[in-house]
């Protein structure tokens, strides 16, 4: 077996249970992942010290490498929450979705994706998406059907819906970033700070550079006079707060409330 020659190829039931539960949940926030890791240790191996999460995941990934999949860490674009998901490491178009959706449904996703990438806010309205339904490949789809397919995308965490508009779920960004950058090289927006793919963010009104909301938060942290890193003009938008996991959990909430800033500023 290919995996056995890897230097850290010791998969135990702790790792297997972790993988199974991560997959079942689809995508998990960092605090949930840490809790899951502890749970897996408790079930199988009470005495062993809980390995540092970063190393734990790195070890698992070294075994998964030969399958071209990995546990990837990302950050939600609206409020900077760290999240984890099992993703494919490949540049093929929407390969994970291909087994679950029909040709016309995949094409609907593609069209929605293009509208999202082209939009200024990173959101595509339901109306605009439904208007292209008659251009889809494959079996003819009615608008009513398309509405349901869009809901299926939301349920399966490929899209997020907010007030009748759709954007990419963080999981989709994690999974498809490479593919998106290769397929739409002219249309994609990139964050000036982290150089990652940018769907939602803020932009400088003078020179047009863009930044993710969490990147803005970190860059301008405790800066009373925020200025554009590129053209030095005054940064005109509200600076969000840096995501602090301790603050969220300390408030005594079992599930941290989402305080998302809609980046309608640009």
């Amino acid at each position: 077996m290919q995996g056995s020659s890897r230097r850290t190829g010791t998969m135990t039931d702790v790792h297997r249970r972790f993988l199974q539960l991560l997959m079942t949940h689809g995508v998990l926030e960092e605090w949930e992942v840490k809790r899951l890791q502890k749970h897996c240790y408790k079930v199988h191996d009470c005495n062993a010290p809980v390995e540092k999460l970063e190393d734990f995941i790195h070890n698992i990934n070294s075994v998964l490498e030969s399958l071209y999949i990995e546990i990837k860490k990302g950050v939600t674009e609206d409020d900077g929450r760290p999240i984890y998901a099992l993703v494919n490491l490949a540049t093929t178009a929407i390969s994970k979705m291909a087994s679950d959706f029909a040709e016309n449904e995949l094409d609907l996703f593609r069209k929605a994706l293009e509208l999202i990438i082209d939009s200024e806010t990173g959101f595509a309205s339901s109306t605009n998406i439904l208007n292209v339904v008659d251009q889809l490949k494959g079996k003819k789809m009615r608008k009513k059907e398309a509405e349901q397919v869009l809901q299926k995308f939301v349920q399966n965490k490929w899209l997020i819906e907010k007030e009748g508009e759709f954007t990419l779920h963080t999981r989709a960004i994690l999974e498809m970033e490479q593919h998106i950058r290769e397929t739409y090289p002219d249309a994609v927006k990139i964050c000036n700070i982290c150089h990652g793919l940018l769907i939602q963010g803020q932009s400088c009104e003078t020179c047009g550079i863009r930044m993710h909301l969490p990147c803005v938060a970190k860059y301008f942290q405790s800066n009373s006079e925020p200025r554009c890193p590129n053209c030095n003009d005054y940064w005109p938008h509200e600076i969000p707060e840096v995501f602090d996991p301790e603050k969220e959990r300390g408030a005594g909430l079992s599930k941290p409330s989402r305080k998302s800033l809609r980046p309608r500023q640009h």
Partner: protein
Amino acid sequence: MPRGKKSKLRAREKRHHQAQSEDQGHRIAHTTTAGEEESPSSPSLTLEGSPPSSPAAGTPQQSQRGLASNSAATTSCESSGEGAKSQRKERPSSSQAPPSSESSREDLLSNKVSMLVKALLYKYEMKEPITKEEMLKVINKRYKAHFPEILQRASERLELTFGLDLKEVDPSRHCYILVSKLDLHNEESRSDGGMVLPKNGLLMPLLGMIFLNGNRATEEEMWEFLNMMGVYAERRHFIFGEPRKLITVDLVQQKFLEYRQVPHSDPPRYEFLWGPKAYAETSKMKVLEFWAKINNILPTSFQTQYKEALRDEEERARVRAAARAHSRAMTSSSCQQR
């Protein structure tokens, strides 16, 4: 800065051309390793069936040529039964093909194994079964002859790395699911709290059978159906546990099935119908589509039931539209009152 309309249009046109060529090819990233090497010796044997006719993309054809020159090696492998366990170097090769084709074959098969593993993992995530047909589609039906080896290696990989067992849940229809070897606690494994209708168990086939039987099935008919799937009343099943308890108690308590006495039957006989939760969580059309998929036919093959499912869909759409209109009326009237 917003892009001009012209540049957006040009970009979109470029995308369409790109998307078209993408659809037709295999995963370019991985098949190029196999495909780029042309087999130096002309193949004396070809795979079963006619050679590929004008392939959509160049790569698949080249990979097949790579395989063709090694088909002798392939057959000797499978007949010796070593399959996945043998290392590449130990494999007896009766063909004259040089080692480069051998490694391209191995690369290609590894690629297929990883594709199949990924597809199975996704089905596990979605809690849905997979049919042999679907698996063949994933690896491309062209490689049907290699399917047993690919499947074997994929199962081993799933067991070793993920602790998941590939089980044939319905031998009569070659339907498979992945089952955890680790006995997961239910609360942890379901992120939705067990509210959604499980599609990888016995329930979907049962609902299908009940629907196709005229929306009810007697206990005798039910067991006849289950026996064909290898599920017996008095025998503990390796996936479903105690079948009798499952269908007459558990699924009934969860309101997916209804189990009641046949009216006016003496001595009392019992029948199964859909439960209210089944009607809420799924539909006749969805169950028919599931049934058709695992039996590898079109839903329209069942003419009567298809028409019934269509009528059901229309009725559901009417109910949804009426509910929307009603809620709109309520909100507008409450606004007026202010």
